[in-house]
């Protein structure tokens, strides 16, 4: 990376400009501040400041029953509420040893992959917004996202705050016309992706702006515990769906795209390819979904009376491949019906560690798109 050291030239030394791309700034994806020291327009120092949206989600969870904090997990990464529920449900099921019937596992995988589509489409839209394309890609992304949110609303009752997963399965079964609509969505989505790629992938301005910008070397990515599309864009083939074999992901054939340069263009393109893989998973899941009950007997009992749910003392760490990276829940129980300790391993929070390393030496607009390519959501960063 170009290490930009500030040289005070003898004849005239330029003053550095200390700008705070502050909490109130059009493209920080929420309430996030970057104290940037500029020399001209090149960035010399960049310190992220966060915590503006900190609600101490973990303290709240310690005062509530296990199921009581399930609706709060929707508010962590408010774009993919289903995957947050999924990770929390997995962690508690590992803690209490509750099995999940097959139909429920299939439904969970369908919901997780739909959320991945929503998240990646939205991310590319907002990345293009940071690049200056005046809202066109974002609104194409919103048009497609609406179809998926309608599916969520039809099944879970609410578009973004689904609160649909329960320990041992899901809250309610699929409505009759859910599966046909998912099949129809699977047909149209690749066409939308081709159109999106035609608009963006070969666009010279986009390629010029994003290639060789914010390069993340492989070693730094691994050592900085970066996960998700960012890690794979730097060339590390690590996808928790393939590594942990959680839920029924082994039954589906899908590939994991890998980039080599690890710059903003790779992170953008990896997400497009991941969306195509998610559609393949959805296709197989919708065809092979078995019938059967949607929540285990034990789970239904606890769903009906969450205060009776007292898992044995112990701790469990459940993690899934959320669209933004590895989302993990570390739950420690002391036998009562309230968790003793409840920790969320948020991918966006940890992916921000190397924001400064990537931005040094670049210009202000590059810092904005590097932040955009990391894909942070402040609800998850600040918890």
């Amino acid at each position: 990376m170009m290490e930009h050291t500030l040289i005070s030239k003898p004849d005239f030394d330029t003053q550095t400009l200390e700008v705070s791309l502050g909490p109130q700034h059009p493209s920080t994806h929420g309430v996030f501040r970057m104290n940037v020291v500029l020399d001209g327009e090149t960035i010399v120092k960049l310190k992220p400041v966060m915590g503006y949206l900190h609600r101490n989600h973990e303290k709240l969870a310690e005062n509530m029953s296990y199921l009581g904090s399930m609706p709060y997990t929707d508010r962590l990464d408010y774009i993919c509420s289903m995957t947050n529920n999924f990770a929390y449900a997995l962690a508690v099921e590992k803690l209490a040893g509750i099995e999940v019937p097959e139909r429920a596992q299939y439904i969970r995988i369908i919901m997780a992959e739909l959320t991945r589509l929503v998240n990646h489409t939205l991310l590319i839209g907002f990345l293009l917004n940071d690049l200056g394309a005046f809202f066109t890609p974002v609104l194409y992304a919103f048009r497609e996202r609406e179809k998926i949110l309608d599916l969520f609303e039809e099944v879970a009752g609410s578009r973004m705050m689904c609160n649909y997963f329960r320990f041992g399965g899901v809250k309610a079964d699929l409505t009759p016309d859910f599966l046909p609509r998912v099949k129809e969505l699977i047909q149209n989505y690749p066409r939308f992706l081709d159109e999106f790629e035609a608009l963006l992938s070969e666009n010279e301005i986009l390629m010029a702006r994003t290639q060789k910008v914010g390069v993340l070397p492989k070693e730094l990515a691994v050592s900085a515990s970066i996960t998700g599309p960012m890690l794979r864009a730097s060339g590390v083939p690590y996808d928790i769906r393939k590594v942990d074999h959680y839920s029924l992901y082994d039954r589906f054939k899908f590939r994991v795209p890998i980039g080599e340069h690890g710059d903003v263009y790779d992170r953008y393109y990896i997400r497009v390819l991941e969306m195509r893989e998610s559609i393949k998973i959805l296709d197989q899941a919708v065809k092979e979904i078995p019938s059967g009950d949607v929540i285990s007997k034990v789970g239904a009992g606890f769903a009906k009376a969450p205060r009776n749910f007292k898992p044995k003392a112990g701790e469990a760490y459940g993690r899934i491949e959320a669209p933004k990276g590895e989302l993990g829940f570390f739950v420690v129980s002391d036998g009562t019906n309230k968790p003793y300790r409840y920790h969320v391993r948020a991918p966006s929070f940890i992916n921000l560690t190397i924001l400064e390393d990537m931005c040094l030496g670049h210009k202000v607009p590059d810092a904005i798109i590097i932040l955009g390519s990391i894909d942070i959501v402040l609800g998850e960063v600040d918890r």
Partner: protein
Amino acid sequence: MEVLTAISKVGIYVIFGVTLLGAMMAVTLRNIFHAALSLALTLIGVAAVFFVLRAEFLGAVQILLYVGGIMILVIFTVMLTTRIGDRTIPTSNHQQWPVLIGALLLLLYFVRMIGKTPWSIKSELAVVSAVQIGKSLVSTFIFPFELTAVILVAILIGTVILAKSDEGEEKS
């Protein structure tokens, strides 16, 4: 019809007044940024004078070069060097009296000179079209034209070297 000539005469005097006012302000204003702006006003006033004298080509070139180019560099330097834009600088250097006497002498000399020269006032001004200017530049005044071209190229190369030397250092 004489009302019209009266109005146009007033118009001309207004233009001259504005130019002079701009020049005065450029010299006396304490805030240096306003001084630079009033310098721009003066230059635009001079361009207006050219238009009044039917020398449109000269007026347009004046605006294009002075206001479009040189004024921007002036303001750039004003802004870039140690941010003196917002600090005000004392304009008087405590030698008012000698300056006043000198100015009066100069004024007297100018008035005498203007009074003496035999102005040959033509009734109607010759309209000089851009084509004539172009032809004369390339025919009769070919030598000064080429000389300035050489000087400009020299300046261009000089700036490139200057910028290059900074650039080289930066990419350490």
